[in-house]
């Protein structure tokens, strides 16, 4: 049984911006443990000479020419936004974080 601690789950929840109650954190720690167990089974089949596969299709160097293609108007871009102002997306205030 893989062990993922409650504080690790809490940290992940914070990174994912998910607000979780104490009870949810406990339950999730158990459930994520089970997921890790399943992944561990796959890991046991891997040998050192098999590199981790990120791209199953053997394809490289796909590029496009540097030519402008019509995109979206500002109105279309903002059409799905919950709120907008002055042609910009309006988002809630950002606290204690800084890009």
């Amino acid at each position, binding site marked *: 049984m893989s062990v993922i601690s409650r504080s690790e789950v809490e940290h992940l929840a914070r990174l994912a911006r998910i607000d979780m109650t104490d009870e949810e954190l406990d339950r999730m720690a158990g459930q994520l443990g089970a997921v890790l167990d399943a992944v561990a089974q796959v890991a046991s089949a891997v040998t050192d000479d098999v590199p981790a596969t990120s791209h199953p*299709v053997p394809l490289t160097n796909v590029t496009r020419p540097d030519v402008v293609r019509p995109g979206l108007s500002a109105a279309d*871009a903002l059409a799905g936004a919950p709120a907008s102002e002055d042609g*910009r997306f309006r988002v809630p205030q950002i606290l204690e*974080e800084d890009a």
Partner: protein
Amino acid sequence: MSAVDQTIPYDEAIAQFDPVLGLEVHVELSTATKMFSGAPTEFGAEPNTQVDPVSLGLPGALPVLNAKALESAIRIGLALNCSIASYCRFARKNYFYPDMPKNFQTSQYDEPIAHDGFLDVEVPASEDGTKPAFTYRVDIERAHMEEDTGKSLHVGGSTGRIHGAEYSLVDYNRAGIPLIEIVTRPLTGAGDRVPDVARAYVATLRDLLRALDVSDVKMEQGSLRCDVNLSLRPTPQDPLGTRSETKNVNSLRSVERAVRYEVGRHAAVLLSGAKVVQETRHWHEDTGLTTSGREKSDAEDYRYFPEPDLVPIEPDPAWVESLRATLPEPPAERRRRLTTEWGFSEPEMRDVLNAGALDLVEATVAAGASPATARKWWMGELARRANVEGTDLSALPVTPAQVAELQGLVDAGTLTDRLAREALEGVLAGEGSPTEVVASRNLAMVSDESALIAAVDAAVAANPDVADKIRAGKVQAAGALIGAVMKDMRGKADAARVRELVLERVGS
């Protein structure tokens, strides 16, 4: 705003500690389209008009790499003497911030396109001449491809900053613009010249990128942005100290100032017996201070993983070699060569470089002007005009060939310097070439001796008291008559010749 940190004077700090510098430079490439989509990249466009589903991170939108951006990345890597990866991938850097619509930045992590290079930097002598010029080799760890974020406008609160803002407005025009991030290794051994090394590196890198023609490298517009990492240790034998990362230091002067400030701040922390906090800091151009930002996340918190929507890159070695053949003369070499060829002093050359006038002066010289006069025009009258209009020298509506033509008219005695400036005015106003402006504005000097003599006689007749003074030996009184004649000639006369004529006609 955080409380102001304690600092000690730079000289005092640097006498007690060994500084270690690291620089991360982000360069926006001047491609027509974004890194992963065909949306345009025009600077200063109306908000959210340079966007498409990829730059907005809409569901199902798929990125495709810009071939030109890849080519530019490889050329930058080669110019920095890097090895080019034979195989590399993009990675997702996961974090939440509203200016990044996908909730991850497409970047490169452990497989940068270019790695392990160097850039030799000429550090100039200090202004007072007490510290000599020297060459410093900046080791480059990596140069990798990534995409820029959107721009947030914080509304509410008093300062326009995040703190106190009620909400933010986001413009995604910049989101997805191709960026190359160039990261140095920890730079040691600079000692008390560490601010000069930092500045000289960024200046040299800027010149190199400009010569490569891959970016417009305008620090004030954010197309070249610098993060300054700094740490102190008691002696060069000690392990590296804890570093701070000062973000978005956006002028050459600020790079130098930010390094100086952080040296003083770190030293004050260490001397008080406290520990330096590893954190991001913000540079404030107005006060010359840095303030604390967020504590730096661990790399693992970004949960990097290979980007599944973009296929790996395997640059053809023959293509890479053909790109190597397109590299320009390294800026440091070109600068040395031109300094000698033109006979400029180091400060003169530095001013030309800082003004971004090297190409313009070179083209003006190629069009026939002497190096000294080419420099005089671009660093004098034209620099003044560019400053007044808040534009770059290269954006002024005058060509190097026209500047050379103008100087040719001065050399031929057709124009005085003052008339030449007036002719330049006309050129800048779009009235045509210098020769055309001289004709249309009737600026050519009066070389007709009889016209000059007539004007002198008229001035003498109109000012008999002045003429008497001159005859009585007060030769300096002649200035009034010369002024009258020059005014009559609308400045289009050789003042020295007018003076001779005045003295002659007065009969002193």
